[in-house]
């Protein structure tokens, strides 16, 4: 098969300018990349944030022109202006933010936008729109407004918009970074189908390893260069290099790798959970009659919270959006919950399950339609209750908190909260500094503009802005969304440290993995109600119920479950990678 994309010594440089618009330095985002991609392949491009993978992709369809080197798309030089529209229509591109790439207010109009630009005759546009919507399973939504679609659906509409231009190649720039697990599955499934059924070449840019498992080929980028290039099996065998680059392996691969390092005879490059389970069963110990002692039971996490700490109580809280209008919708339905200072509470649920509505009640941003919220026994909607003071005690970090940064310098921004609390300049400064220290931002960051920070740094600065109010309970809505594995790990670590310092943490997520290792207690939300509540182990034992409401138990727990169900000596209650390793090693090396 012929090469659909070929680059030779590709370089992209951009100038970093200071305040006076003088060029301070030249940054090399893409550095000497020579790559050929075969027609019909599914190629994943992996790399951390800032590794140059997005810049590389934008050069492929002439959104950016190379500083040096050449790109040929279907044999055409992309820097030749004559080829511009052919290049862009044969290599369509889907971007990260689902909202920012839909132009029209009706789905079918948006899908027709590309063909309209290309001057395709009317009837042909309709045919293409219909085919494109069918191909990604969105035909039923042709006349809907994008405002009514979920993130995954919007991303599929964006893909349809590209398909309608009849591309040979589909470039997806982190299309799943802003989606929930369900949306992510939807989009990936659609992309794989297009690749298989229509033979469209796919370039998937991502920092999620799991998404690359089924690719034909993986290219790993770091600092603008191609560091690895090969099949998934080949790449995933080079575990040390992947770790060194700050990327995370899929859970099954990671577990296999650690077990192999501890002496189990597992083959290299295990990709899926099924594969790992199969291999483990193959080498299972002969005598497995002995029931294994549950690893998790060794050190049960005590539901923490010193009796002296503050308590936030919700009793029978219901909330209705736009009551009395045709748009009325139930946000919460009789939620009762107690949150203590010093505990780590995980709140999990799908998009629309009421988690975000719930947390806006915790500091009185929303007033319950029915029921009460009380802080240390006092109703926060009682007469003359000072809710602004409460917001200093119950800190709330919204999703993508970096979007609320506004000051000229980081330290000023972090000081915003304490300043609103009416503290003295000295105290404000001290609290801001302490908060920045807690999230790992040194004094060097004080005078920098928050808008010049990297994504992960911005997130931490925004977190510091809430911490600076010295809350007793810190509530976070999807704090790891959009972060790469290293950024995510760092944030979880910070939260654990804060908890050890005596703060109560409420962690809202739709990812079980995030919560499994950190939470003392889990609340599962569904349809505006508390569906389950309990210790992580208790919750995960109810895997089937979770499955029914569209949530999945962590991968390591699932693997251990499978093994136990096959009669292997593995503890089905493991929560973390560490526990899984310990449990399996104990079972497999018992003789």
């Amino acid at each position, binding site marked *: 098969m012929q090469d659909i994309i070929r680059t030779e010594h590709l370089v992209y440089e951009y100038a970093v300018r200071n305040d006076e618009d003088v060029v301070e330095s030249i940054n090399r985002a893409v550095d000497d990349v020579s790559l050929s991609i075969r027609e019909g392949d599914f190629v994943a491009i992996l790399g951390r944030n800032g590794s140059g993978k997005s810049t590389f992709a934008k050069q492929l369809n002439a959104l950016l022109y190379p500083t040096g080197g050449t790109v040929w798309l279907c044999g055409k030089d992309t820097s030749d202006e004559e080829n511009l529209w052919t290049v862009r229509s044969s290599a369509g591109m889907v971007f990260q933010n689902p909202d920012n790439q839909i132009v029209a207010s009706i789905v079918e*109009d948006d899908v*027709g936008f590309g063909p*309209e630009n290309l*001057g395709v005759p009317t009837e042909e546009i309709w045919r293409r729109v219909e085919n494109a919507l069918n191909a990604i399973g969105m035909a039923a939504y042709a006349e809907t407004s994008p405002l009514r679609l979920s993130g995954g659906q919007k991303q599929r509409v964006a893909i349809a918009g590209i398909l309608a231009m009849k591309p040979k190649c589909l470039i997806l720039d982190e299309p799943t970074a802003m989606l929930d697990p369900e949306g992510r599955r939807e989009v990936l499934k659609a992309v794989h189908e297009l690749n298989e059924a229509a033979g469209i070449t796919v370039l998937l840019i991502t920092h999620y390893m799991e998404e690359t498992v089924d690719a034909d080929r993986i290219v790993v980028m770091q600092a603008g260069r191609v560091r690895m290039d090969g099949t998934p099996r080949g790449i995933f065998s080079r575990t040390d290099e992947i770790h060194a680059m700050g990327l995370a392996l899929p859970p099954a691969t990671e577990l296999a790798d650690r077990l192999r390092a501890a002496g189990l005879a597992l083959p290299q490059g295990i990709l899926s959970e099924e594969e790992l389970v199969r291999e483990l069963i193959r080498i299972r110990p002969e005598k497995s009659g002995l029931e294994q002692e549950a690893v998790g039971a060794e050190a049960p996490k005590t539901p923490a919270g010193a009796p002296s700490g503050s308590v936030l109580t919700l009793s029978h809280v219901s909330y209705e959006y736009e009551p009395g209008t045709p748009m009325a919708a139930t946000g919460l339905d009789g939620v009762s919950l107690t949150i203590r200072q010093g505990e780590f509470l995980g709140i999990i649920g799908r998009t629309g399950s009421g988690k975000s509505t719930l947390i806006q009640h915790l500091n009185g941003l929303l007033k319950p339609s029915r029921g009460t919220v009380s802080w240390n026994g006092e109703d926060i909607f009682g007469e003359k209750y000072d809710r*602004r003071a409460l917001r200093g005690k119950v800190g709330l970090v919204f999703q993508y908190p970096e979007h*609320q940064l*506004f000051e000229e310098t980081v330290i000023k921004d972090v000081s*915003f909260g304490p300043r609103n609390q009416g503290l003295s300049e000295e105290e404000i400064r001290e609290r801001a500094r302490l908060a920045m220290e807690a999230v790992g931002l040194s004094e060097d960051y004080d005078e920098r503009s928050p808008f010049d920070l990297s994504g992960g740094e911005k997130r931490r600065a925004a977190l510091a802005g809430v911490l600076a109010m010295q809350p007793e309970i810190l509530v976070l809505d999807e704090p790891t969304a959009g972060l790469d594995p290293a950024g995510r790990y760092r944030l979880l670590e910070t939260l654990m440290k804060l908890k050890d310092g005596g703060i109560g943490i409420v962690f809202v997520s739709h990812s079980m993995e995030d919560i499994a290792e950190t939470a003392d207690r889990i609340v599962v939300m569904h349809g505006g109600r508390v569906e389950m509540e309990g210790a992580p182990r208790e919750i995960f034992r109810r895997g089937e119920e979770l499955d029914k409401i569209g949530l999945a138990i962590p991968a390591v727990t699932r693997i251990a479950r499978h093994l136990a169900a096959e009669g292997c000596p593995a503890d089905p209650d493991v929560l973390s990678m560490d526990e899984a390793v310990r449990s399996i090693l104990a079972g497999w090396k018992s003789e």
Partner: protein
Amino acid sequence: MFRDLTLGQYYPVDSPIHRLDPRTKLLLTLIHIIALFSARDFWAFAVSAGFLAVCIGLSKVPVGYMARGLKPILFLLGISVFFNIFWTKGEVLWEIWDIAITKEGLIQAVWMAARLVLLIFGTSLLTYTTSPTELTAGLEQGLHFLNRIKIPVHEIAMMMTIALRFLPILTQETNKIMMAQMARGADFETGGLIRRAKAMVPILVPLFVSAFRRANDLAMAMEARCYHGGSGRTRMKPLKYRRADWIALAVAALYLAAVFII
């Protein structure tokens, strides 16, 4: 929260008026406005009201629903009636102290009120029966001739399309940023004018940053989909005049003629 936020006041039902070409409806509205401002006596207003009544009847938009839309302008209506009654010279009907109510003033006031009410019903019927998307398409294709005098009709229409798409998103975002700053102890309710204006900074800065980021993203996405202005573009939904449109326009012409003749 704002999932159902719609701009304008489109009333989504299927009716002969809804099905008319947006260009026809724009033209009808224009004719209606001209007729209203040339109407001078009872019969002219009666014709105008009759025409509007038929349109509203055909449109299936409940009159009560439309009347509610009048509320915000009742004040304006009151003022114009007031001034017309008391400040028009002519044959005095009543006189209390120095203030005189004249016959001419009274008549003027009634006509003014009738004119305003008919005007508002007429123009809002356009927005009730035409979705913002159709309206934009109607303006673009109806005003295409303005291109000749260098008015960038396509670009303006594209701006409207994008505004329609992103205003609800930005409204949502404003709400979110406001909540986030409130969570950091911001206070938007107390204090004088200057203090309140200052309190808006933590909302406006992030909002602008976000709007620019979105604009940037969108521009990139549009370029990736081969957008290069209006030239050489085809349409997925080209507007076509149907029989109903010609009938409507003929009726409107008669309406205008009637008002002028009377």
